């Protein structure tokens, strides 16, 4: 019973949120905050795999998100929207519900492949030098899309609403909210299963002593490949969801600013802690919304808060620990496997 309570309560939570949104108790604005929260959770937990667990410094997470966003969007637009370059829709809107997860998967897969740009150099390079490569990867993606006129170039790309409308045409519920919540659950679950396995524990072994890891039978190249591809692939999923929440993407929403934002969430939450990354993504999203009245000044207040945090708690909110390590009693109530 206890084994499943947490999982059950998560599903009940998702169900409740959807019902409340459907009934209008949660208004459009709150819904969009919740969805953004989900996307941020996916981003920060996935970056945590590289920056926290593997101890590398990837500052190009936005680039992989961008690949996922564009690939997913192109697939759904191709299928459901009339586009003056890509042509008439290939599928009837009633297929949207089946095609959307496939499109999301395609976006994640493409982002994972893009992750190779960083994963392969990581075999020989590490630390600051690898950080520069991740930065370059981010720029490459943004510049490439900027120069691809077929998908709008710097003007951005739209038409994704058709897929969302298609889904709502079948059953009229807030589909995107549901997809984001499930996407978040799925991502954290994947990462959780990976990092708690013996296979996945090879990743922190690389961070703590790469030479010892290699000598102790950890195939470090394979582990780096898995870590980078899994991390960028999940970022791609976040990108695909993000694009369909907004219904519009622009390459510059995924530039170094976005990557920095994700990094802030990772360091805020604590390296190598999935619950920390989740918690900080929630906090960060809420903070951004709460401080909205400050307008441009919020970008003074938030970095200031970050400086204070680093001064007084440099290990982040959770500091390398999971929630269940800090409060062992919680284990009785939740096991997320």
């Amino acid at each position, binding site marked *: 019973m206890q084994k499943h309570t947490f999982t059950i309560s998560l599903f009940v939570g998702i169900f409740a949120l959807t019902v409340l949104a459907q009934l209008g108790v949660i208004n459009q604005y709150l819904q969009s905050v919740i969805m953004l929260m989900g996307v941020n959770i996916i981003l920060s937990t996935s970056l945590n795999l590289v920056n926290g667990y593997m101890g590398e410094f990837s500052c190009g997470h936005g680039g992989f998100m961008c690949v996922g966003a564009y690939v997913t969007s192109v697939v759904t637009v191709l299928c459901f929207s009339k586009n003056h370059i890509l042509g008439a829709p290939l599928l009837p809107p009633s297929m949207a519900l089946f095609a959307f997860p496939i499109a999301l998967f395609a976006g994640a897969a493409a982002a994972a492949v893009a992750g190779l740009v960083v994963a392969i150099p990581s075999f020989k390079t590490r630390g600051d030098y690898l950080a520069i490569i991740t930065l370059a990867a981010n720029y490459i993606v943004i510049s490439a899309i900027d120069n691809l006129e077929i998908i709008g170039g710097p003007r951005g790309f739209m038409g994704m609403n058709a897929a969302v409308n298609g889904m709502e045409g079948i059953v009229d519920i807030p589909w995107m909210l549901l997809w984001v919540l499930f996407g978040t659950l799925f991502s954290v679950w994947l990462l959780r299963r990976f990092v708690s396995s013996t*296979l996945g524990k090879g990743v922190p072994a690389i961070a703590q*002593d790469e030479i010892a890891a290699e000598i*102790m*039978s950890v*195939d470090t190249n394979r582990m780096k490949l898995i870590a980078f591809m899994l991390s960028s692939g999940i970022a791609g999923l976040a990108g695909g969801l993000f694009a369909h929440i907004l219904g519009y993407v622009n390459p510059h929403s995924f530039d170094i600013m976005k990557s920095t934002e994700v990094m802030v969430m990772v360091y805020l939450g604590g390296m*190598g802690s999935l619950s920390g990354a989740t918690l900080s993504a929630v906090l960060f999203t809420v903070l951004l919304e709460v401080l909205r009245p400050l307008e441009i000044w919020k970008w003074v207040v938030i970095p200031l808060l970050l400086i204070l945090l680093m001064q007084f708690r440099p290990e982040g909110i959770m500091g390398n620990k999971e929630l269940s390590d800090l409060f062992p009693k919680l284990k009785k109530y939740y096991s997320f496997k």
Partner: protein
Amino acid sequence: MPLLEVKGLTRRFGGLIAVNDFNIDLGEREMVALIGPNGAGKTTVFNLVSGFYQPSEGAITINGRDTKGMRPHQVTSLGVARTFQGIRLWGEMTVLDNIRVSQHYRAGYSLLDCFLRTKKYMVREKEIERIAWELLEAMDLKEYALELPRNLSYGMQRRVEIARAMSLKPSLLLLDEPAAGLNSADVEGLIKLVRWIHDTFPVTIWMIEHQMKVVMSLCTRIKVVDFGATIADGTPEQIQNNPLVIKAYLGDDTI
């Protein structure tokens, strides 16, 4: 067929010849020491055998397999485990996890198995866990299983490192200065531990050690190197009386 066969092993770093024409055959369940003054190239030999460096010349054969071009984790999976001169445990992982991760090659399941928790995954993980606990129990480390290595004493960390190496179930165990930095009580404990390992597991032990007490009480064969070249090879008694060895350690009496 010897377990480890090293022929004409040479390693150059630029103009420096760290190891020059090194040869050794190790049979099953032998206990051999490699000694020599600082900078003689002992650790380089270990690094070459464990695949961390590629030899400039010569060949290393383990269980009949030539290790040329293999990466360290591949050499390890042939049954070679080692410890390091300075302790290299994973400091942020519990002792138990240290001993689980070192069995990485035994995992052998794919990423998909890991996500779906397939039967294969469950069986392998159970096996890894079982071996880890058995080893902790056997090596008197059970009570420290959930501690971080850095909270343990130096002697205890050494023990954990040896346990980690043994979790690979190696047929050849390389110990690089296992007694370095240990106090005399810990050294006694170490001698007992190594002897116990040698009696209990079917393993050949090859160690680099400066403390003659450890070498003389454990090893049946000693090889002495200096400036990358082998200068003596024999039983402890032969080595103790070898003029070349005395010269390498104490210098010449002519000025």
